[in-house]
């Protein structure tokens, strides 16, 4: 297969499952004829028909609730929320039903569904189009929250999400939808959920991130290398439930940790990772845990977007401070 972008990988994975599993059905507003506002579902209705790639009326709670009902019948719905900022009307259905159905029926009714949403800032979008509220979903038991950072992971993790027997919130970092290309073999091979990826091995500090921020984090790691700081870089990928074993193993090796996220700092996925490190690896730490994040503010309109978002310099500053502890 030719090199493809992250969004093309999402498309390819959904196409693979539509092709191979008749229970897979895809729906949302604009996903059919228009192929999605970002083109994530481009061409899928044409190939798989209006019965399996379905344009719905505009109603987010309905889109999520429909997925709950269909999944209860053993189908594998993939529901699109056009932007994560619009997911809030659907939260009732996701939290109260998708997340709890297996539990409250003792496994009698399950929810093998995927809710996709483009998320994060950096594309000069209007208000409510740039949120990074993965922590909200990570807090809810019964959900899995998956965030790919690059095309090959988007392909493999999307396949795993569709095949997973439980509800998966699949958040696509739209800022990096098209900035890198990977050679991705369209062979239906999934990547494991609940598993971190070690993208760069290092011995001095562990940089932990996910989604679009992985790109700044990897760039920062290269710059740190030039300064003689050997950073290990971890892509968390599944931010709930988190593979803490990989993170703890790394921190125990390097003795230092810095978590990089786009979301607001307080009560976040980064907070949870920091707390786990503090609980289980504090005696391995040579320095306080660092966090580089968005601010505890509303995501600003795009004139201040760059000032809100963590960048390579902010990561470097934080890492240099952590490295001062000897």
């Amino acid at each position, binding site marked *: 297969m030719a090199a493809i972008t992250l969004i093309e990988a999402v498309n390819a994975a959904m196409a693979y499952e539509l092709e191979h599993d008749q229970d897979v*059905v895809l729906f949302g507003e604009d996903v059919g004829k228009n192929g999605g506002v970002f083109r994530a579902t481009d061409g899928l209705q044409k190939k798989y028909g209006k*019965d399996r790639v379905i344009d*719905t*009326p505009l*109603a987010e*709670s*309905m889109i999520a*609730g*429909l*997925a*709950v*009902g*269909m*999944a*209860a*019948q*053993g*189908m594998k719905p993939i529901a699109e929320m056009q932007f994560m900022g619009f997911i809030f*009307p659907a939260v*009732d*259905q996701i939290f*109260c*039903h998708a997340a709890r*159905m*297996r*539990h*409250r*029926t*003792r*496994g*009698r*009714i*399950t929810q093998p569904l995927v809710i996709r949403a483009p998320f994060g800032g950096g594309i000069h979008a209007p208000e409510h189009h740039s949120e990074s509220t993965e922590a909200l979903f990570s807090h809810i*038991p*019964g959900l*899995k929250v998956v965030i790919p950072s690059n095309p090959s992971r988007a392909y493999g993790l999307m396949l795993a999400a569709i095949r*997973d*027997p*439980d509800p998966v919130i699949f958040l696509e970092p739209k800022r990096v939808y098209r900035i890198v290309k990977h050679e991705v073999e369209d062979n239906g091979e999934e990547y494991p959920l*609940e598993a971190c990826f070690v993208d760069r091995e290092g011995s001095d500090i562990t940089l932990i991130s996910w989604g679009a921020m992985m790109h700044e984090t990897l760039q920062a790691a290269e710059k740190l290398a030039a300064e003689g700081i050997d950073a290990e870089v971890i892509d968390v990928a599944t931010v709930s*439930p*988190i*593979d*803490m*074993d990989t993170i703890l193993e790394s921190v125990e090796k390097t003795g230092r940790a810095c978590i990089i996220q786009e979301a607001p700092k307080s009560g976040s996925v980064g907070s949870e990772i920091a707390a*786990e490190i503090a609980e289980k690896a504090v005696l391995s730490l040579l320095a306080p845990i660092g966090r580089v994040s968005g601010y505890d503010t509303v995501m600003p309109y795009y004139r201040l977007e760059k000032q809100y978002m963590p960048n390579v310099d902010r990561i470097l500053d934080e890492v240099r401070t952590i490295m001062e502890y000897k």
Partner: protein
Amino acid sequence: MTTTTVASFEIKYHQYLDASGKPAKDLPKFAKDMNTMRELYRDMYKLRVFDAKAYALQRTGKMGTYPASLGQEAIGIGYGDVMTKEDVLIPYYRSTGGLLKHGVTMEEILRYWGGDEEGANYSVAKEDFPICVPIANQIIHASGVAKAIQMRKQKRAVVTEIGEGGTSEGDFYEGVNVAGIWNLGAVFFINNNQWAISVPTDIQTACETYAQKAIAAGVEGIQVDGNDIIAVREVANYALEKARSGGGPTVIEAITYRLCDHTTADDASRYDDPKVKEEAWKNEPLVRLRKYLEDNKAWSDEDEEKMKEEVAKEVEAAVKAYEEAPMPGPEEMFDYLYAELPELTKPQREAAIKRGAK
């Protein structure tokens, strides 16, 4: 200015038995079968006894909050009677009648309200949903299930129920709207018992009927006397047949009166007018059906006594089974959360088991 009417709509009201139990018009065939009618009477009576027992269990600290169906028995028993086992019921908290008719056991219902998730692990009605507590979410679930059924070209219907207050929620419209667009085989029952806890219908809506809310979604809306089991069963049968045969969705507003508190945690005397309630008692579904049966020489005082004894035994047996049901262990908090428990949560499970109820 030229003004023309571009669309007009009407809502039909259905009633067969008036409050005195007299036929208001020609009865459907099933209503002339006294065995069927006796059975329906017994089912409604059983629900009333079950509710009273559930109330007593709550009042004596043996069960949690419970919503009774007093005065509204004809709705769940009516639609439940025409559901096949292949149909799917998506209940709300006052759907006890429908659940019982569709095969959910009294013990299961007691266990659910008694605080044990095992109560929603229905042994018979395997595809029925657990009771939906958040208001109106279930309307969309019904459309989702109906969509799956439609995609698989099955001839099955989906029934869901909601209070009239629930129709003020967005999910009600969203669920009915999509059912209309896709012609889904779903039946949406509105239990219009006049009260959403303490809020009466004139605060709930400016609509003349709740059934007309279907019209905005392009769906057929019907109003029925919800205290008339013959009418409820008849319109339910019509809507279910329509759903199974590809005729699309129906919204049915069943008009009744909540003769009880909203739940065991409510005190309706704070807001309900005793005079209105007294009138409503004259209109309730059991006394009406009993009169009809007696007029047809199909019920006697002896039948009543015999039924009371049998039902009491049946309900007591369910209560005994409930009281003897094993307590859930702490592992049950963890074991059904995901198909496979996350690594991060496994130590919590072990700790909870070790700690037990200490």
